[in-house]
């Protein structure tokens, strides 16, 4: 909306100089108006939003930590799995606080370096949340487009599936399903299975379960949008011109769905980070030896008095990451929603 006003202002000043100026060389002075797509307008709004820019930089900061985790750990000179038992007292409590060797100190009991585990811990959080967001967005958009555009029995069946998925108690399933998957892929849960293998199955089953329950809400949203869009003239025109259905869906309809999709992505990302950390904290998400903030928080709650840094580093990290992403999501929604007035 703002650019429109600016352009109007520009043309008005242009006109007044034309009227008052002494014989302009070109009477029809062209005002440079560039058509901006709604997405471009939204991004321009976002760039002006100080909260959004700050939050985006916090997010980028954590992404960089995740990407350069090995480098950062090397910089410190430690790794995630070495046990520094010599630095523990007989009760298993660390005898050192944060030092030049161990920037965030070491874990009680095992004595692993906390800084290395912190930087590596950013990885599963972002990986799980990122891949679940991509998967659910893709499936949600495709199913929503299909259901909304096809109508008839396709729509009825897909809508029923959407309603079905939405009416399942998703946390309970998120707990129950990995137990079954684990038994299928690794053998019985109590057997002496290889912890690395277990950790890997848990990683993929978490992504699978979260994706299975995540797509439906977006699909319902997209379906609703498509239902109203498909009656519009440009779709009818494309159909009359003989544009194939696939092209109508992805070339005509999809560009009109950018706003709801972007908003849903920006809301989904932080929520999956919370869910991943939360389930891991409950012991039903990722497990050792995967370095993950949820695992650390869960272990550190027993040492919150003796070793506050152990608890507070992952707590602050996850809070900052989620908070900044959520606030960014809010800003994105405001920027993309044409009804927001500023």
């Amino acid at each position, binding site marked *: 909306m703002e650019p429109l006003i600016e352009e109007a202002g520009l043309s008005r000043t242009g006109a007044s100089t034309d009227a008052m100026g002494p014989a302009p060389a070109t009477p029809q002075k062209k005002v440079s108006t560039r058509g901006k797509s709604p997405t471009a307008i939204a991004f321009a709004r976002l760039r002006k939003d100080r909260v959004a820019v700050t939050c985006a930089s916090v997010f980028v900061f954590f992404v960089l930590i995740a990407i350069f985790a090995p480098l950062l750990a090397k910089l410190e000179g430690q790794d995630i799995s070495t046990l520094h038992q010599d630095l523990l007292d007989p009760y298993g409590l660390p005898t050192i606080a944060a030092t030049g060797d161990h920037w965030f100190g070491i874990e009680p009991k095992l004595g692993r370096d906390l800084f290395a585990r912190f930087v590596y811990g950013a990885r599963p959080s972002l990986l799980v949340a990122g891949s679940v967001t991509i998967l659910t967005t893709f499936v949600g958009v495709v199913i929503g487009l299909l259901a909304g555009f096809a109508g008839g029995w396709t729509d009825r069946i897909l809508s029923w599936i959407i309603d*079905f998925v939405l009416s399942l108690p998703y946390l309970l399933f998120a707990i129950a399903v990995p137990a079954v998957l684990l038994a299928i892929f690794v053998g019985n849960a109590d057997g002496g299975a290889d912890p690395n293998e277990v950790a890997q199955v848990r990683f993929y089953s978490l992504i699978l379960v979260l994706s299975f329950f995540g797509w439906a809400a977006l699909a319902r949203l997209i379906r609703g949008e498509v239902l109203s869009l498909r009656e519009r003239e440009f779709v009818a025109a494309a159909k009359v011109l003989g544009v194939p259905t696939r092209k109508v869906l992805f070339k005509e309809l999809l560009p009109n769905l950018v706003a709801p999709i972007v908003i849903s992505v920006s809301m989904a990302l932080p929520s999956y980070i919370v869910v991943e950390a939360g389930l891991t904290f409950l012991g039903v998400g990722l497990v050792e030896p995967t370095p993950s903030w949820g695992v650390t928080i869960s272990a550190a709650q027993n040492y919150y008095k003796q070793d506050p840094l152990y608890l507070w580093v992952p707590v602050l990290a996850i809070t900052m990451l989620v908070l900044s992403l959520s606030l960014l999501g809010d800003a994105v929604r405001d920027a993309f929603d044409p009804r927001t007035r500023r």
Partner: protein
Amino acid sequence: MLLYILRRLVSAVSVVIVTLVASFALFFLAPTDPAGVICGPRCTPERLANIRAGLHLDDPALVQIGVYLKGLVVDREFETGGVVRECPAPCLGYSYTLGEPVTKLLAQALPVTLSLVLGAAVVYLAIGIFTGTMAAQVRGTPLDKAVVGTTLVLNSFPYFVFALLVVLYATFLPESGWTSFFENPFSWASGLVAAWVCLGIANAAAYTRYSRASMIEALGQDFVRTARSKGISKNRVVYRHGLRAALTPVATIFGIDLAGQLTGAIFTERIFDLPGLGNLVLRAFGQYDLPVLMGGVLVGSVVLVVMNLIVDIAYTFLDPRVRLG
């Protein structure tokens, strides 16, 4: 109207049936061996075969699910190692590890979850509606902006971290634990108060936002202007006329939310150590106790479906503008 309710009912029942069959397939027909889990590490093949027979694990899939479904209406008997155990009518199986019928375990857990969720609802509805209504009246002032900012931050704060910090650092709250209300109402309340406050405050943020938005819209309506111009006092207009209109959407959200919380109070139950539905399912996960897992999932689904049904039907009564199609 009747047709609409009937259609919603059919759809709800179909969801429950599919959930039942799907989770049964997932838990019992998957290539897993529950018998091995019950039998434990020091297991003789003889005993294993005995357990398998007792659980009907060698029967065809359809017979197994038939037995399970029949158990919902008729008493079942379980025979493990020569001991016969009764499982009275709505039978969802026998816990492998606790040696109790699943129905009994669920019946013990449900009051805990209900007390937790309903008590917290009182807290967040009271705080949320009050703060939201106040903020709507002073819209645009620094106070309103402070309220909106606080709710925004609180709303996006990871809940389990919040709850954990409350448990670890808010030690002035009475220690949490479960006592039945009928046994001792006072210790029932004092054991739950910490969890109520925690869940209540976390959710109050969302309800403040809903009520504020809803109230702002209601106060902009013609009937509010008319009421004011008739000379009715501002407070009366806000609390009698405005609030009534503003609460309908909030009530709808509350209905849907409540269903979600009944199955989603896991974090609160775990962190505050309350033996509710979520904790039961979590324990079952740790011990690979399939009947309990399945029972928990099933009860959760039914609760969710029934609540959604109630909300949908209630909404058509609450808001005459809703057209049934």
